[in-house]
């Protein structure tokens, strides 16, 4: 009985508290309504969404997408979404289809803190207009087990060296062909590869050939990031192409691993917030863009996902170790060596449609693995 009374008392108190809170609405809450966003999982967690809702009065409603295709489709259906957290292989399509509108940098107070290379990313900086607000990114690094691998790590050639047979793991993703193309652009300049995502048939053929030679050296192809970690822990792999996320997780698990971007450079991905062409709730969408540009929010998202924040001031909130591990310090030389993912299209800019579209990359990838 005592217990029940306590419960009733608590409930009454809670009711009182909410009604008090409701009447004591701060005057700064000018906005209202629902903000509908299409996002990747891990991008709309309560830790940073709730404070935004409290600050602005907007209610965030998210729709997760499982792939860039799904993201594009959701925006295309015109179901009243205001914002989308697009990756490089969706942003170019969204702009081309006129589903998003440019963002005015002067309305974003923290715009200057965002990594300049990402702000002018070729997938969302089009015709001098900024369609994307840089949010999170990540490179694809060369990772190795320092206790078990003592060979060279200054070049991606480590992943093509027969000496390392049965020790290598790489992502199971057709976009991995770009990694081979990037390597060939430096080691075989005669092929004339300028952009690892724009390959004509001869260049694609050369990359496929290299990956076919690599095929017998592979211990396993990894599909999910957790898989990559397991293949390093117990699967017998000692070096491979990896995400910094795996390096952080393995380090936390007590394994001695190291990472680098080899001399040829690396591929990577970058996600940006994009504003729908006809948002249902433009004031809330603009408020979110302002909020999302902030260092503290970006650091929280990065910590949650082990991605790298685009805001260069995030390091304070990340701490020195994580900042260094994630390369969040805006090291220009480092960033300039990353070629960010985009969808390979047959039109590679010269108007001749002579490049291999992504569907051909996928068929080539099937053929590589045999």
């Amino acid at each position: 009985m005592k217990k029940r009374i306590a419960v009733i008392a608590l409930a009454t108190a809670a009711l009182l508290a909410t009604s008090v809170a409701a009447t004591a609405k701060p005057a700064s809450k000018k906005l209202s309504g629902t903000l509908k966003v299409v996002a990747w999982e891990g991008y709309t967690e309560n830790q940073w969404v709730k404070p935004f809702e409290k600050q602005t009065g907007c209610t965030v409603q998210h729709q997760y997408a499982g792939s860039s295709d799904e993201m594009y489709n959701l925006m295309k259906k015109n179901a009243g979404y205001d914002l989308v957290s697009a990756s490089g292989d969706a942003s170019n399509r969204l702009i081309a289809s006129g589903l998003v509108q440019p963002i005015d940098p002067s309305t974003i107070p923290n715009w200057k803190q965002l990594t300049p290379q990402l702000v002018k990313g070729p997938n969302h900086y089009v015709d001098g207009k900024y369609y994307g607000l840089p949010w999170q990114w990540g490179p694809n690094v060369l990772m190795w087990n320092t206790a078990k691998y003592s060979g060279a790590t200054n070049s991606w050639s480590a992943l093509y060296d027969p000496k390392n047979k049965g020790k290598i793991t790489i992502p199971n993703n057709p976009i991995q062909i770009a990694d081979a193309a990037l390597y060939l652009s430096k080691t075989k300049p005669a092929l004339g590869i300028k952009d690892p995502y724009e390959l004509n048939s001869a260049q694609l053929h050369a990359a496929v050939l290299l990956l076919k030679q690599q095929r017998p050296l592979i211990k396993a192809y990894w599909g999910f990031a957790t898989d990559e970690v397991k293949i390093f822990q117990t699967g017998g792999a000692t070096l491979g192409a990896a995400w910094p996320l795996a390096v952080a997780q393995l380090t936390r698990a007590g394994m001695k691993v190291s990472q680098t971007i080899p001399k040829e450079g690396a591929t990577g991905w970058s996600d940006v917030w994009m504003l729908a062409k006809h948002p249902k709730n433009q004031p809330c969408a603009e408020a979110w863009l302002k909020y999302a540009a902030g260092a503290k929010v970006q650091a929280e998202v990065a910590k949650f996902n082990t991605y790298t924040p685009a805001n260069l001031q995030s390091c304070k909130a990340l701490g020195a170790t994580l900042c260094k591990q994630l390369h969040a310090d805006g090291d220009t030389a480092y960033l300039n060596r990353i070629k960010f993912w985009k969808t390979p299209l047959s039109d590679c800019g010269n108007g001749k449609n002579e490049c291999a579209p992504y569907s051909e990359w996928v068929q080539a990838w099937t053929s590589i693995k045999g």
Partner: protein
Amino acid sequence: MTKAESPLTRLSAFFFRHRGLKLVLLLAVPLAWLIGVYLASLGSLLVQSFWRADELSPNPVHVWNLDNYREFLTGDPVYRSIVARTIGFAAITTLVDIVLAFPLAYYLTRVARPRTRRLMLVLITVPLFSSLIVRLYSVRLILDDGGILHSLLATFGLNVQIGFTELAMAIAFAYVWLPFMILPVYAALERVPGSLIEASRDLGAKGSTTFRTVVLPLAFPGVVAGSIFTFSLTLGDFITPAIVGGDNHQLIGSVVYSNFGIANNAPFAAAFATVPLVIMAVYLLAARRLGAFDHL
């Protein structure tokens, strides 16, 4: 009519007079399901397979063509070798599961006491309650290079690497689909009348003769039913090759998945997905030929 009819009696009399309506009510929901969900999705799969993927949009271009079929039938030989590999894995999985399941099912029906039988049947189905992915990762704990089996063999001085090999995949397949073989074989063996076995013995047949001429023919439909499960489940799987095989050995499912999920090339995936349909049609015809469905 002296007694007042209850509404229930009247209802049943109504249905007695209108037999057609009874049939409609009985089959309406399952038929709607079959046509609306099952056949419609199969139909849309077939239709899509004759379209072409669009580079920029997830929606295929509605241009009727046979290119997708041409690609894997006459194009890159990799697709034919993937089909052959998949059939090989399905066949090996089925054979291994028959060898494992038959003695166990025989023990359960003829030897085990009811208590033991119930316990073992529960144990056999327990893995089906957990997620396939979890089960595959637990297989990995045994088979990986640092795994239990590897360390066990290492104590005998054997350094055999099983992780991510074809052997690992075969072991995993046989493990995950085993219950689907045990249960139908068990059900078939349970229906073999004990009197037939006794009669065979009374007439002087040896144990092996009784098994060959009485038990085996009667249990055969159960084995075929189980093999349809193990064979078709292996044909369509893409998770086992990804997790246990490290995607080193692609199967039909892996190609379908990468074209659907990653490449945005649903038409090609749909076309390639007709291969297991054709294989299963041939398989079922062969099973019918062998008399597997005679007692249905």
